């Protein structure tokens, strides 16, 4: 079973590396959105510092949304998904591997680059530290919840719009707790509560969404 998990993870990472251009797209989007904000609203340090966590988190959310479809779409098109569904391995485990692969490809770069961009926006050191932890805890939730959305819409010919409508409301709690944590840290308040909520969301989504996505995929494929 562990072997199945590892080979799917490895497979998705190899595929991503061989499609480097596609890999860069969500990342570039994330950086551009954040960089454009100061140009749009002026370089006043107090305003930028105030809205920095919100900007970075919204950009992370949208860039995750941009890349979600890839979790299952290409596998659906070339029949690999069918082979996974009729394989002698538990589908939810394979999906967990795909979620983690998707996070490594699209979430991890955001976790690494996000704090750097926060520095440009003038966020305080405490704020940046907390932002890093919220991104680390929150971005896997985006991939996990997204996998259910994609699993539900992958059978539709144009599922893009439905996918955003389906997934974005579920992303809202992550956004609220994450920006609350960073705001609290920047103002010098304790952040334990929102961070604990984010951790709970992470554990909950990683343990439940693979099953939900597996059930949804069985419907989408038939």
């Amino acid at each position, binding site marked *: 079973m562990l*072997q199945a998990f590892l*080979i799917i993870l490895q*497979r998705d990472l190899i595929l991503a590396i061989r499609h480097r251009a596609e890999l860069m797209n969500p990342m570039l989007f994330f950086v551009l959105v954040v960089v454009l904000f100061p140009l749009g609203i002026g370089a006043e340090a107090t305003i930028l510092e105030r809205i920095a966590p919100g900007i970075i988190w919204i950009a992370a959310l949208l860039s995750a949304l941009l890349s979600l479809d890839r979790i299952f779409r290409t596998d659906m098109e*070339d*029949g690999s998904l069918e082979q996974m569904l*009729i394989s*002698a391995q538990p589908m939810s485990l394979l999906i967990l591997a795909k979620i983690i692969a998707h996070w490594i490809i699209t979430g991890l770069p955001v976790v690494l680059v996000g704090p750097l961009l926060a520095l440009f926006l003038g966020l305080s050191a405490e704020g940046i530290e907390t932002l890093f932890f919220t991104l680390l805890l929150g971005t896997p939730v985006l991939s996990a919840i997204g996998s259910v959305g994609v699993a539900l819409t992958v059978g539709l010919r144009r599922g893009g719009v439905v996918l955003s409508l389906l997934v974005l409301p579920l992303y809202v709690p992550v956004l609220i707790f994450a920006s609350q944590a960073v705001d609290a840290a920047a103002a010098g308040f304790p952040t334990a509560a929102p961070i604990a909520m984010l951790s709970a969301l992470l554990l909950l989504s990683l343990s439940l969404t693979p099953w939900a996505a597996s059930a949804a995929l069985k419907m989408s494929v038939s």
Partner: protein
Amino acid sequence: MFKSLPAYTKSKRLSVKNLAVEKQDRWLFQNINFDLQPKEVLHLEGENGSGKTTLLRVLCGLTIADEGDVYWNDVSIQKQSYDYHLQLSYVGHSDGIKQDLTVVENLRVAMVLSRSIYKVSDKQILGDILKNIGLENKEDTLAFHLSAGQRRRLAFARCLLNDSALWILDEPLTALDIKGIAFIEQAIQAHIERGGLAVITSHQPLNIKNVRCTRLNLSAVA
């Protein structure tokens, strides 16, 4: 390669009772019944659009029939999907091959997914299989650079990876040259002689000797 393999240890039977599938408010097929014993081939015939592929997907458990059920050894396949999938090899219409993985990488994923009887690290076996399907010296070629026939052979290799007693093949002979067709016919023959079962759709006649081959014409049932 084929001669040396022992008979299947667990030969079972595949039966279908009163199967019916509805598509876009009309019956695609109705009242399909058959009982496939070890050493038997079921050759599905029918015009384009008569539901051959759909029936094969129902037999795999990918599509749920609107009426009736599929039984593996008298137990519904829905109730034993793990045991059933362990016994099943399916080569479908979309071949389940990743264009951006090499031939060997594709094979390795297929081996792990099907819980192959061979070890993934066993280079000898991988070499033997590649030689058999006529893809020797192509180990590190991306599947993207293979011809349609070669890709078909690679997809068929999935049947040789594990000891599955049931082969479900959707047009296995399309795009193949004379040698390829002969190879697949030999492989099916050896599979049947070992006590296996096969369900095949093909517009070309299958040249398999000394085998009980039942024909089922879906156009006639509709």
